[in-house]
């Protein structure tokens, strides 16, 4: 769980439903699937909250040169994997926004602007936003993204952002909310619950 506001991307394109960012990061600093992130919008008046649903590593000339070599040295491979900032692109699904101290579980009035810095949410912010699970209908209804998997991963992270004694209760509550929303699609619900179980619900 990221506690500091490390920049994990700069917005390259966006819409009300989501945003895409690029940056160079070292492998240890890469964001994770289902991670909670935010980017400022409306001149800093709001922060758009997103769930990372895709991370791709972009083309890199030196990496390509190393890959094409007969046998790159193990030290060079380790350098590329651990030291070199890798050009990445991340895609985030918008699930709400913040205006001042208020968290809103709906699509924002405006998307972030180009080059807005994308940062990870701190644990306290994840806890605050997920006090209510009203973002789930919006996230689960998003077409063309692996919505169920990204929501499960995000809920597991939200659980991990809580004290150990609260995690199970949070995941049970999240499972119940998913059951309410996906009651008409038992196959999908079963897969989601299995995913959540991986996060600690017995």
């Amino acid at each position, binding site marked *: 769980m990221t506690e500091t506001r490390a920049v994990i991307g700069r917005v390259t394109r966006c819409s009300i439903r989501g945003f895409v960012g690029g940056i160079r990061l070292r492998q240890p600093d890469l964001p994770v699937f289902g991670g909670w992130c935010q980017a400022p919008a409306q001149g800093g008046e709001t922060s758009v909250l997103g769930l990372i649903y895709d991370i791709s590593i972009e083309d890199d000339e*030196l990496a390509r*040169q*190393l890959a094409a*070599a007969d046998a*790159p*040295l*193990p*030290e*060079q491979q*380790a*350098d590329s*994997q*651990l*030291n*070199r900032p890798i050009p990445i692109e991340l895609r985030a699904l918008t699930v709400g926004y913040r205006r001042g101290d208020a968290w809103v579980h709906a699509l924002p009035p405006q998307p972030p602007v180009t080059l807005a810095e994308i940062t990870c949410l701190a644990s306290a912010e994840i806890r605050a936003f997920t006090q209510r699970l009203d973002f789930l209908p919006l996230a689960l209804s998003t077409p063309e993204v692996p919505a169920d998997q990204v929501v499960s991963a995000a809920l597991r992270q939200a659980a991990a952002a809580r004290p150990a004694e609260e995690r199970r209760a949070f995941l049970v509550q999240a499972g119940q909310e998913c059951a309410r929303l996906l009651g008409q699609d038992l196959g999908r619900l079963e897969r989601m619950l299995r995913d959540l179980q991986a996060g600690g619900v017995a």
Partner: protein
Amino acid sequence: MRSPAGARYNPARVFEGGDVSLDLAKVLNQVDQLGAETAQRQLERAAALPKAQAALHQASALDPSEIRQRIERAGDRWRGASPGSEAWQISLPPPALPARWRAIGADGSQVYPDRHAAAQFCLVNVGSLCLSHGSGEAPLASSQPRLLFRQDELTTSQGEAIDTSLVNGTRDVAEMAELADLAERSSGEPSLTLLDNGLLLWLALQEFEHHSPDVDLLLKRYLGEMDRLRRAQAALAGFIDRPRGTNLLRLVELCMLPLQQVNPETSRQRLYSNLVDRDLLEGLLPPGQRSAVFRVVSPLNAAFEARGHGIHFFYLNTGYDGQIARVEIPAWVAEDPDSLGRVHAGILKECLVTGIPYVLVRAHELAVVTQHDRGALEALIAGALLRQGIAPRISQKSATKRWTAARRRHRL
């Protein structure tokens, strides 16, 4: 609205992204002439090369004492090469490397002072990579930025604003200092320390005869860092890709003059002015092999020699796409077979994948200050000024350049 020019053939359109400021249509004719001129020069070089190679063969057969005599007669201002103990035309294969050794590369970049900026500063950023061959571990990567902003850092000893060449000299000293720091920490493992340019301080090369106290000070610091590297027993080398050096050709030309006619005036005459040393050696050095070692003869090198750092060089076929590189080394590396072998074999190993030493490729990547980095730095400086109650203001000229530099592109 479409511009009237848009209807005509616009060569800029051949490039992805379309719009460029340069009117490429107007430069097309000159580009064609450039191509023809390049082809003509290539023909001239091809014609001159066999003669130069025959002259090299002839010169290398001369008695060493006669060559020394010729160099003495050429005077202090002659800039050529002096042969060492190795026969001129030999090409030597690399020796074996130890199982564990360390390659260290350093490279620097800079932001020059800008009188139009909101605050006066310059920046020197040195990137370095220390890679322990045989360890299997990730190398140690580092980037060391230094902001110069104090009055004494931004003015010369004469009270004038420092210019770009002094910033470059400061950067060169910082690169050498970084190598020395890393070499001292690497003692115990044989190390090869690399820069991606010649070892004769470029600034001093340009200003040596003007005796500027600022240049003298930088040269003193530069030589001091070389002292540290020698004490650390690091093999120091400067790697020059696509070298333009002519020291060896000048020596060949000197040897073609009748001995009695050699003097400072005649020694400046060029027989093969369209060739460089690299051309001469391209067909003579098999992949992986190096030439003999020569000593650089120049007034500045005399100052290096006085400190025991006289610069020598050899040419090396890196085995990467027929590349002939020039490698410069100080006397204490040239005279130590172990260090010389480590430079030769180590550079080959480092060039295997990237064509130039990997540690230098990465050091450059770590050093480079992009436009984005510069913008972020300027934003930080603006913030610092605001906290002091100073409104950051760039000059009007700078402001107008920004208006026009970042043209917006509307794609419909």
